[in-house]
């Protein structure tokens, strides 16, 4: 069995804010592990504690309690750092530098020799689509271009683990598509990618595993597939000439019925659909459509957040 690339155990972080030193629990004891080669999604609404957790992993913030390990070592360990690339949320870089100079500077910190640095810089800038802007200072970059420069600097050390904090925010649809392709390609190169997002559709498509946190607490940790299985599976049936007694039965069993002229739309739980279709055919109804509907991450997440709020009340 391989050891995790990143392990977070019972992590807690408390901040004291303001003049009155009010205590704020940003992260309240979360645990998860990221295995090699995974694309791992870190989900949660704004203010859930995602960035605090990531900064703790990057040793920018020291935990109040709990443990973080990168490749089995503490996050401040130099060997571990050499194997990690990080893109901060809303990245800002030295705006007086050109992207090639930024990568040159960071490349030196990874101890990459001069010839290899030059080779990697050219390749990376092309890869993130900044080949045309090599000679422009970062001051003249748009937000999307800065995000690309940020991705390039995260990859300059050829890291085994790439940690991206909200990498897709602020990008236009084309930029998002390109960045998702880069993330997918990192997987084929055998890299582990850990990225946070509050945009659930991105994670649903890209990630093997996910962690969901809300208000600093862990809500889910497991495979994306398992998470989606916990969602409701429904079937939508559109038919004409449906007998009234059948509709009454559907409603009494918790199904939804909508009439549009002589057509009726029925939504029932997945497991009841087979029996209902048989009953409709037996009753002589004309079936127009039978469409399975699986609840996506978006709906599931909203439902989960709603539940946690109810529990809190």
């Amino acid at each position, binding site marked *: 069995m391989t050891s995790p690339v990143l392990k977070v155990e019972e992590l807690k972080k408390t*901040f004291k804010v303001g003049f009155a030193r009010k205590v704020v629990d940003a992260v309240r004891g979360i645990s998860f592990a990221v295995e090699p080669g995974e694309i791992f999604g870190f989900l949660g609404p704004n203010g859930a504690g995602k960035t605090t957790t990531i*900064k703790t992993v990057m040793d*920018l913030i*020291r935990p109040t309690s709990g443990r973080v390990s990168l490749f089995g070592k503490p996050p401040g360990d130099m060997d571990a750092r050499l194997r990690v690339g990080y*893109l901060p949320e809303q990245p*800002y870089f030295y705006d*007086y530098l050109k992207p090639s100079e930024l990568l040159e*500077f960071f490349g*030196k910190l*990874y101890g990459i020799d001069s010839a290899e640095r030059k080779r990697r810089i050219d390749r990376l800038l092309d890869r993130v689509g900044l080949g045309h802007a090599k000679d422009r200072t970062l001051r003249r970059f748009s937000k999307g271009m800065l995000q690309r420069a940020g991705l390039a600097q995260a990859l300059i050390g050829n890291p085994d683990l790439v940690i991206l904090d909200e990498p897709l925010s602020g990008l236009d649809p084309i930029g998002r598509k390109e960045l998702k392709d880069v993330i997918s390609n990192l997987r084929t190169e055998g890299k582990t990618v850990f990225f946070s997002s509050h945009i659930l559709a991105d994670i649903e498509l890209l990630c093997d595993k996910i962690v969901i946190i809300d208000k600093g607490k862990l809500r889910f940790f497991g495979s994306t597939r398992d998470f989606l299985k916990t969602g409701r599976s429904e079937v939508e049936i559109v038919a004409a000439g449906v007998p009234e007694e059948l509709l009454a039965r559907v409603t009494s069993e918790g199904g939804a019925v909508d009439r549009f002229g002589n057509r009726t739309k029925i939504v029932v739980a997945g497991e009841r659909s087979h029996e209902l279709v048989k009953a409709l055919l037996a009753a002589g109804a004309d079936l127009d459509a039978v469409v399975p509907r699986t609840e996506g991450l978006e709906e599931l997440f909203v439902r989960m957040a709603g539940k946690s709020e109810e529990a809190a009340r």
Partner: protein
Amino acid sequence: MNSLIRILAVASNTFRESARQRAFIGLLLGALILVFSSLLVSELVVYDQQRRVVQDFGLFFISFAGVVIAVIVGVLLVYKELERKTIYSLLSKPLFRYEFLLGKYIGMLLVLLIGTVVLSGAWFLVLFVRDVPVRLVFLKAVLLIFGELSIVSAVAILFSSFSTPVLSGIFTFGIFVVGRQVYFIDELLTASKGLFVTAPQIRPLGEAVTRIFPDLSLFDVAREILLEVEVSWLYVAQSLAYALCYVVILIALATLVFQRRDFV
């Protein structure tokens, strides 16, 4: 070896930042002010006083401008990294926090070195125009000013590692002012009359100040130049070694503070 490469990478980036942000234009402007104001002030005095005025004024200006640069650049050095959030991507690289601080400090010393060289060049030009022979002691005086600036900038870095730029600036300037008076306070402590005799209850405070604060008067040889007293190379070397000791202690303290900091 790798650590040195990383420190120098941060230092050269710090230096490049000053160069790209046109800090050196301000420096050239300072040099021009030095030249013109020295010439102007020396015009206002009688001929046999001119030599003294251009000597004194030039040294004072280099020292004053240097301290202003050291305080301003020093207190903004770490603050700008935090404010612009560039510190997140930098400190997440294979770079220890002490390497970051040392690199920043060395980069700043380079800026101060260039500043001192440019201003000294302007001063030597004024001396030449006023027919004052440029003596070796002037070079020694400039070296000592640089030693003083290295302490002031290390103090600025220490404060900026935990405080706001305005407070750091006030504290650093305060330490510079007190540091320049340490010699005087020390003399008062050994005197048979004066402040510490009339108010013995504040004597411990005076003693604490002379023990903790750097004696910056060691780096001011304007009086020796005026009285044409010899300033030996040994004295210069000892004063620079004294500066180095303070710098090491101050940067170590700054590292201790910085090490514990959360970059939220």
